[in-house]
Structures are given as C-alpha cells and as structure tokens.
C-alpha cells in the first residue's frame, strides 16, 4: 500500500477534503465500524489502541477504551485483526506512548508494519521526546503524525511540521477529545497558521463535533479527524450509525 501522506497529498491536490474517523479498537464490533467508515467516504481510519490512562481523551473515548480493555483488548489482538478488515484506505493507530515503550519502539513499529498499518499518532509523545520512536518508525516505514497545538509559539510550528509524516494533526482547541456545541476559533486559527508554513496535509481534530463544524474546519484545513462524535454513535447505535454519520460528514465537507 502506498503511504498515507502520498495518498493524502494526491487526494488534496485533486480538490477533495480529507476525512479521518476514529474508532476505538477492541470495542464491540469495532471492525465493522472501520469497514462502515471506509464504505462511506473516509480517506483513512484512525484505530485507537486503548490505554489505561488516556490523558488526552474526554469521557466518551475514555468510556470506549475502558469497555474495550474490560473486554480483553490488547495491542496484539487489535493488530491481529487489522489484515482481516479488508479495507482499501490507509489505517493509522492512535495510542499512548507507554504501549510503545513497553515492548520497545522497534518491536512496536515492526508489529504495526506487519499488520499493514501506515501511520501512528502518539498524543503524549511531543517533539522533544520523539527521537527513539521516530527513528524506529522511519525504519519500519510507519509515518508518524505529529500534533500541533494552539499553544505553540510560531517558532515551534515549523519544527513540528518538519518532523510530521502523513499529515499534521492540528489540535482544534485547548482541551481533551469530546464533542462541543460549536467549533472553537482556535481550530481554524491554528490550521491557518500551519497551512502558511507547510505544504503537508493539515487536518483538524479534537472538538470537531458534527458535519457543520467539519465543513467550517475544512474551509481552512485540508481535512478533519472525527473522534468522540463517531465513537459515541458506535457506543449508542452500532456500526451502521457510524457509517451514516461518516456519509453525512463526507457530504458536508464535499459541498462547495
């Protein structure tokens, strides 16, 4: 499979906005939810590998992670399922650094590569600590998606952009994952600051909560990540509701 960044650049350059839903791996029927995303217009799916202490996650994703862990989810079990998902779009994993640190970056990167994962997001691994992981990931051709936050001074953004592979995850607000009533101003501000300094794809995530907000964010950004709004539908109504929602967001961001 071609890399995530290559695929995203091609899609963007063809004039289409990028949509990346997040699904908590190990949650009941998560595999069907990933397939529903792929079938309804997602450009990639971010698969969460649940961690016991998810400091960047709000109540919805915390609860999904907890349920998955109670059900016996492990990194190995989730990655074992990935080749059987049988979707055509690139897949990324999102997890916390201790699950990488425990087996060691090289082993973890090799495990991702073997499963056919294209990219990784580690929200508690900032630039200054990312060296050992990035070296292992680069060697295994796993693209490391870096996060940029609204608190970053201007001088920091190019450093993050330089190290990012795949795309840049532009954090939409000051806060953890979860749905909000409206899109924070910080979402488009930061996306605009990033677009001004890099030609890598810039996607807004955290606090992009519905189709309208996704549309607003993509007027500036190249795409959006949808986390809590997707996972809540998975928890409340199952994979079909996830598919319906992804289709709705797809239609919204495709509108002129």
């Amino acid at each position, binding site marked *: 499979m071609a890399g995530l960044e290559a695929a995203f650049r091609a899609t963007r350059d063809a004039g289409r906005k990028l949509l990346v839903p997040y699904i908590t791996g190990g949650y009941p029927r998560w595999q069907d939810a990933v397939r529903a995303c792929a079938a309804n217009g997602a450009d990639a799916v971010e698969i969460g590998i649940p961690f016991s*202490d*998810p400091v960047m996650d*709000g109540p919805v994703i915390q609860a999904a992670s907890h349920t998955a862990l109670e059900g016996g989810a492990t990194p190995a079990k989730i990655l074992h399922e990935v080749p059987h998902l049988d979707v055509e779009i690139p897949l990324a994993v999102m997890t916390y650094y201790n*699950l990488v640190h*425990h087996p060691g970056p090289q082993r973890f990167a090799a495990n991702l590569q073997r499963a056919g994962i294209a990219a990784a997001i580690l929200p508690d691994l900032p630039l*200054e*600590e990312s060296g050992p992981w990035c070296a292992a990931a680069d060697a295994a051709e796993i693209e490391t998606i870096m996060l940029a936050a609204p*608190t970053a001074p201007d001088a920091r953004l190019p450093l993050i952009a330089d190290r990012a592979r795949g795309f840049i995850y532009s954090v939409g607000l*000051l806060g*953890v994952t979860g749905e909000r009533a409206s899109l924070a101003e910080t979402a488009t501000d930061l996306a605009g600051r990033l677009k001004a300094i890099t030609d890598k794809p810039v996607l807004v995530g955290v606090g992009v909560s519905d189709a309208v907000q996704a549309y607003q964010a993509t007027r500036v950004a190249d795409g959006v990540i949808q986390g809590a709004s997707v996972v809540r539908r998975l928890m409340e109504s199952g994979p079909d509701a996830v598919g319906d929602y992804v289709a709705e967001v797809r239609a919204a961001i495709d509108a002129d």
Partner: protein
Amino acid sequence: MTDSLLAPPDATGRFGEFGGRFVPETLVPACQELEAAFVDAWADPVFREELDDVHRRYSGRPSIITECHNLGARLGVRLFLKREDLNHTGSHKINNVIGQTLLAKRMGKQRIVADTGAGQHGVASATAAALLGLDCKVYMGAVDVERQALNVFRMKLLGAEVESVESGSRTLKDAVNEAMRHWVANVADTYFCLGSVVGPHPYPYMVRQFQAVIGEEAHAQMRGMTGALPDVVVACVGGGSNAMGIFAGFVDEPGTRLVGVEPAGGAAIGHGVPGVVHGMRSNLLQDEVGQVEEAVSISAGLDYPGVGPEHSYLAQRGRAEYPSVTDDEVVEAFRLLSETEGIIPALESAHAVAWLSREAHGIQGQTVLMNLSGRGDKDVAQMMDILNGRL
C-alpha cells in the same frame, strides 16, 4: 558539585535515564514556561526570602526533631523523628505547596488545580490558595473521597472546589489524570500544582527543591543533637516527595544509608519496570503489555503505581534502597508509635515505622533518622474501623 548525585536533571529533564517530559503537545509550552519561571525564581534572593518567610511565620519551620527514647530503647536503635507532622496542615505537603503557589502568583496565574490522594496535598493547596488569594480546584479519586471524608470537608472549608474522580481505579492515579486533563483545557490561566516529585519536567526537580528544606534542616539538626550524621535515613515513598526532601540532605553523605519504604501493594521500584505515565519515564507497575496497574494500599497517599524519577535513578545507582511493608505491618506500626511515643503518625509515615520495627534487629545500636511526614488525625476514623475491638 558536578559529582553530586543531587545535581539538577539534564536539559531534557532526566535524572540518568529517568524523567523527561511526556506530555500532550498543548502542555509543552506551559512546561517550558514553568521551567524558566522556576529557575528564575529559585535564583532570585527575593523569592527565596519570601518563601523562607512564609515557612517561618506561617507553616512553622523549621520543624523540630524529636528523639524517641521509648521506641528507640525497645528497638535497640537511637531513633530521631523529623517532625513534618507538626507543620501547618499536618504534613510535609505544605513545603511544596507554598513554593508552588508563590511561583504561580509570580507567574500571574489566578487559579491553581491540584491532584490529591489522602487529601494532604489538597488541603495544603487549598490552604495556600486561601492565604495567597488564589482560586483552587482539587481532583480526588472517588475512593479517596470516601475514605478521607474529613480532608474533603477541610478543603471545602478552606474555599476549594473538590471534584470527585470516577474514572479508572478512582484513586490518586486517576486524580492526576483528571487534573492533567483540566490543565490541558485551562492552560492559559491555570497553574497545575502537582503534589509530589512526579510528572513532567520541571516538576520532579522543582518539588524536590521545595522539599529539600527538610533534609537541609535535618542535616544541621542531627549534627547539633548527636555531633554526627545518622547511619540510616528512612522515609515512606508513594510518589516520593517527603523521601526526596529528607534524602536531599544526605544523598552526598556516603556514610548515611537511605531507605525509601514502599507499600507492598504499590511498590513501583520493588516490583515495577520503567514505563511512561503522567509525563515521566520512571518505574511503574504495569501489566505484560504496558497497561498501568492499580496500586492497592491501606494508605491513600501511597496508592500510586508510579514513583518519582529521581527515586528510580537513586535505586539504579544503588544509592538508596526501596523495601516494602504490608498493610498489616503498617497497622501495627501505627499503634506502636502511638503507644510508645504519644505520636499518632499518618498511615503513610507509619510505613517507615513498620520497616524500622521489622528490620531494627539488623541495625542495632545505629542512629536512625525517620521522616515523620504527616500526622495521623486524618486516618483515625479509618483506623477505628480496622482496629475496632482490638484496642
């Protein structure tokens, strides 16, 4: 001083291979700002004088040292207690909190957010916030809210908002998670007042510096009282701030043995392996894939699966040792110090008593300095349940 084991961490915030700054990107600038503000304040005589002044006129420093003639005679050692239990608010936690809240004010922050286990750090934070006119919010695990109801009420009385944390194991670990989430969302105007030598750089170093007053005082006091340094310095270790505080006075004294006593159900150094949580790389109780395990201890203040990175470093260097004691041994020790010396220790501090009681046979005739990190008033209700019918 370059050979000192007490040197500041390196530029990445590491003591050897432990420490660092593993935080969400949102918090990186805040940690950098805090580091710069602390280094600046610590080097500023005006700040240091202000801190000393609050210690002297408000907290009650220096804390005294008490020689325990009764228990010492029974155990066959010369036993001295560093009486952090006599500080205002009843534990060593006030030392760190006064330092951090003065720093928060200096940085222009109006709100502090704190985590707490037993409630001692929460009470100290609420106290300092009241003194300095800051708003204070304290996150406390629901289990601890239950078993430390008195401290919850004290915090509220002091004007703090107490948020009960229902996620995860509903203890200190989860209170730290929730306080960090709050900080991520409110980083612009909120100061995160961490309660121990844990967390991302500069917290482990900064909190150690604020607690080092314990060891510095004790070093001089022991020389004055005995004409020598103690053979053994012992303290309990959860996150490890009271232990780092007293160790700081003796780390570079090779003749003094350093003992940090962990709870058997939360022995991060004894049973953990290096991991990354709460912003730091340090020893951590975790399962075979790296999920953080829940600590289980009679003492809410030590119910923590990790430990300060500097302790992992001192353990790896062989400079300090970290045995553990069981809850049963702690209950006996709680009674022992109360009955023999008329001093009711905090359950946390009773871990150090328990170790000494068990191991005294191997150190007969030696001089032991124990950090009595807190008083046991907060634990009396819990002990009434445990000891009911046994007194």
